[in-house]
């Protein structure tokens, strides 16, 4: 069963709804026992990095997530803040991230750019992936964020997006996927991506 992790960071109604729309099934839960039974995970999230990590810790989810993702290699998709939490650290806070991807989170240069980066933008594939199977199409997604992910290894970068600089809009390493944009607010493009994840 696909479990959407509910750790009190933002509304997850539209993610749940989109999964239903594409014919998938999911549970929404913040309970370690339920998460332990998951065959696939989505870590959503809107809010600040430290609040996100604190909530995961207070719900007792960090050990179980490490077990599921690192040992059992269950596929996980981090969305927006959920993606950023999969990295080591963020300039937004002091807490350590989950650290599964060799990457850090950096603040956009607000002197020269309108921050947050908010609106529709294009994600340019950097490698083949099961998340993006229609390779000929321009992939457009809805973004809202003030911080972006910077990966150590080019091989982890799945898509990049241009906003003043080129940043990592999606990464993939084995069973670990992260997207900076909101597939649940990116209608046709988001549905295809979530369907591909659900069908992995």
């Amino acid at each position, binding site marked *: 069963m696909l479990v959407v992790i509910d750790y009190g960071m933002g509304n997850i*109604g539209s993610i749940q709804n989109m999964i239903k729309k594409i014919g998938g099934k999911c549970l929404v839960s913040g309970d370690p026992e339920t998460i332990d039974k998951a065959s696939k995970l989505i870590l959503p999230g809107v809010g600040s990095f430290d609040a996100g990590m604190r909530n995961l810790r207070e719900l007792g989810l960090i050990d179980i997530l490490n077990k599921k993702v690192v040992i059992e290699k269950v596929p996980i998709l981090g969305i927006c803040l959920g993606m950023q939490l999969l990295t080591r650290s963020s300039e937004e806070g002091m807490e350590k991230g989950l650290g599964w991807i060799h990457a850090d989170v950096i603040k956009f240069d607000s002197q020269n750019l*309108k921050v947050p980066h908010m609106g*529709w*933008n294009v994600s340019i594939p950097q490698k083949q992936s099961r998340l993006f199977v229609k390779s000929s199409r321009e992939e457009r997604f809805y973004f809202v964020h003030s911080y972006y992910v910077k990966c150590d290894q080019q091989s982890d970068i799945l898509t990049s997006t241009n906003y003043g600089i080129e940043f990592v809009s999606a990464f993939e390493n084995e069973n670990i996927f992260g997207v900076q944009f909101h597939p649940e607010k990116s209608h046709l493009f988001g549905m295809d991506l979530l369907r591909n994840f659900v069908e992995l």
Partner: protein
Amino acid sequence: MLRSRIIPTLLLHKKGLYKTVGFNISKGKYIGDPINAIKIFNDKGADELVFIDIDASKEDKEPNFSLISLIATECFMPVAYGGGIKNVQQMKEIYSIGIEKIILNSVLLYDRSLLREASGLFGSQSVVAAVDVKKNIWGKPKVYDHIRKKCTKFNPEDYILSLVESGAGEIYLTSVDREGTFSGYDIELLKSISKNCSVPLVINGGASSLQDMSDAILIGGASGVSASSMFVFKGIHKAVLITYPDYKDLEQIVGSNGGK
């Protein structure tokens, strides 16, 4: 870079969708059920939707949170909501439901405290200031007060500058005279505002074609264009048909705005 947005505006009246002419509901027409319209816009891939409850402020009612919640979960694209907002508690509830932006209008006419407080609390990108402009009896464009149904003394350019100073993250500009008329956007008005507007500017009122939208973006300097009639009516008899242009057509006509 970010693209120019094409935004259907949907008016909520007595829990249904209506389309007015010149802000006049008596000349309006029932369009249908909001959720059905959302489903069509999801399938057509609309960039963003704007919902405005045209009763809430007039009748001094609370926003209809259960309807807004239904809208938020059904919309697979970003949504802005306006209507009846008077305080940050209401705004907090609407954001927590999953609405990305809140539109303030009549509450801003004579008092900026809510705008300042809201943009400080929620970030200016989630607070949109709507400005209605109508020509007064001497033909001068003035900010229109839709509650009192009269033009104010405010000149649109100065009024909008002061809204941006007070924290508005986006301006949603409607030409009341054009609304529901299919006579094209008021490009002169748009130009006079866009030259000094440092935040995204969306124009609404009068669109009849993609060419009108293209003109508003390329000549008028709009960051986004909004329309209702064009997306809900077909033909001169205004048969209800909810539609949205194909992305390919939009790309050709509208193109990228270079990140505005």
